[in-house]
């Protein structure tokens, strides 16, 4: 114990932990402010903002799932090659021979589904508490973009196992793009503008006239790099805005009633 006390007084310890853990108001505040992750939070919040019945915790859970997806996703990347030749084989290998492979893939899959679910519930809650009202209008818009990004992330990942489920779901999903007005070869005014099956918006999306190897590569890069990066940026804006807009919404004070 004496050794521990000595260690706590050392330069080394103090360089890491800036304050003691004694339960004082001041230390509680420092605990938040001196921590890069926790300082996303204010030091003090209105009591109703800590009430899970108010926020349902859905925004936070969505973010947690995003973190889980990032970590499990990076692990999956070590075992996966985005080519028509290897993709499916790599999945089989992962599911049968890689230690904890199935756990990583299952967690990635189920967290992805869960994230789509929680982001919808988060939006529902934000609507029902009227939290998009001034001054939070803009953050609601950022939220809608995050909703779209979440769906796109999930959708682009759906193709990667390169099994029957994957290509047909993506075929059905991307078939709509044919019919884009003006930009699709089967859409209103598309042919009139010179859209053909091999130059319209669907062709750009798929890198071909059907879901094939180039689509796999496109979706892979989008899924692993482009979309997560954009989503992370928008999340940063989203969280920053929650703070700047005065923290979790609430009826300013009971004086208003």
């Amino acid at each position, binding site marked *: 114990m004496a050794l521990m006390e000595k260690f706590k007084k050392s330069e080394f310890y103090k360089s890491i932990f800036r304050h003691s853990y004694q339960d004082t108001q001041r230390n509680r505040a420092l605990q938040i402010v001196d921590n890069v992750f926790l300082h996303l939070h204010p030091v003090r919040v209105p009591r109703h*903002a800590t009430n899970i019945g108010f926020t349902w915790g859905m925004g936070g859970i969505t973010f947690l799932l995003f973190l889980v997806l990032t970590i499990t996703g990076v692990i999956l990347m070590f075992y996966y090659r985005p080519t028509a030749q290897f993709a499916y084989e790599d999945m089989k290998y992962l599911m049968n021979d890689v230690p904890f492979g199935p756990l990583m893939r299952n967690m990635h899959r189920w967290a992805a589904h869960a994230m*789509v679910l929680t982001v919808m519930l988060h939006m529902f809650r934000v609507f029902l508490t009227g939290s998009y009202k001034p001054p939070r209008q803009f953050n609601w818009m950022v939220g809608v973009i995050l909703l779209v990004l979440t769906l796109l992330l999930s*959708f682009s990942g759906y193709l990667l196992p390169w099994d029957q489920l994957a290509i047909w779901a993506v075929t059905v999903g991307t078939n709509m793009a044919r019919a884009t007005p003006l930009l699709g070869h089967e859409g209103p005014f598309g042919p009139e503008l010179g859209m053909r099956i091999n130059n319209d918006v669907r062709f750009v999306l798929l890198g071909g006239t059907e879901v094939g190897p180039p689509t796999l590569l496109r979706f892979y890069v989008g899924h692993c790099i482009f979309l997560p990066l954009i989503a992370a940026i928008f999340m940063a804006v989203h969280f920053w805005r929650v703070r700047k807009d005065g923290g979790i919404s609430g009826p300013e004070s009971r004086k208003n009633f």
Partner: protein
Amino acid sequence: MQQILQIITKPDNIPIVLLLVSVIFFSWFAWTKGRKNDAQEVPDEATMDDKVQVWPYLVRVEFLATIAVMAVLVLWSVFLDAPLEEPANRALTPNPSKAPWYFLGLQELLVYFDPWIAGVVLPTLIIVGLMAIPYIDINEKGNGYYTFRHRKFAILTFSFGFLILWVALIVLGTFMRGPGWNFFWPWEKWDPHYVAVLTNVDLSEMFGIPTRLPDNSINPASFMFGAVLVLGYYTIGPAYWIWKRNTDLMKKLGLVRYAIISFLLLSMGGVVIKIILRLVPTAFGINPVKYVWVTPWFNI
């Protein structure tokens, strides 16, 4: 019955079951809180306005929620494997071919609309409409607490869109659409050889105006019929404005906001009308409506 159990227990469909359960639970939960607040002078949230320290009062909630979510996720992943079907094969089209579950509401809309509407225009309107909400809802009340009394219209409209047009259509698309995207009740077996008896007809044909002339070009009468119906439907917006423009509400809204609101609401209503035109006649054994308006460039 076996059919429905088989679909519900498909690993990729678990989220839909969760969606259904959680949406019902949270709707009830928010409703109870809203009604409780409505019965009080001051909403509960406003009486909880004293400040507490984030450490520990918020951090501990986050910590517990994290543990709970991770526990559920790990158990879910240990006991249920993510699906991996046969290798991709372009020559073998599954029937029915379904998009991922969260897009099944949109895929279901393909029954009622051409792909350019169901797959492009409506999703765009949903996104734009969602983004517009904060700017078109100028009701100052109901900011930051659960209520129904203070914002009945907003809550009813949003809940209808989310619970019926989004969630219910997803459930319908997943659990009741079998081979050929034919409708099957949960207790029916999905029969791949099922052929629908009724054929779709255009609305003008129901009124004795053929859509096409004998040379297969579009009948101008049918074209006009559809144009009057569709464009006439959208003029409800301006007409209502002219009628009510001097009310306080309209003055507060202003023309631009009103135009956006009425366009979005009428479009949402239009989706419902088209769904009814397709489903209701079928229930009575009458041929359902295919198009309301047929033009050389697009059909609605």
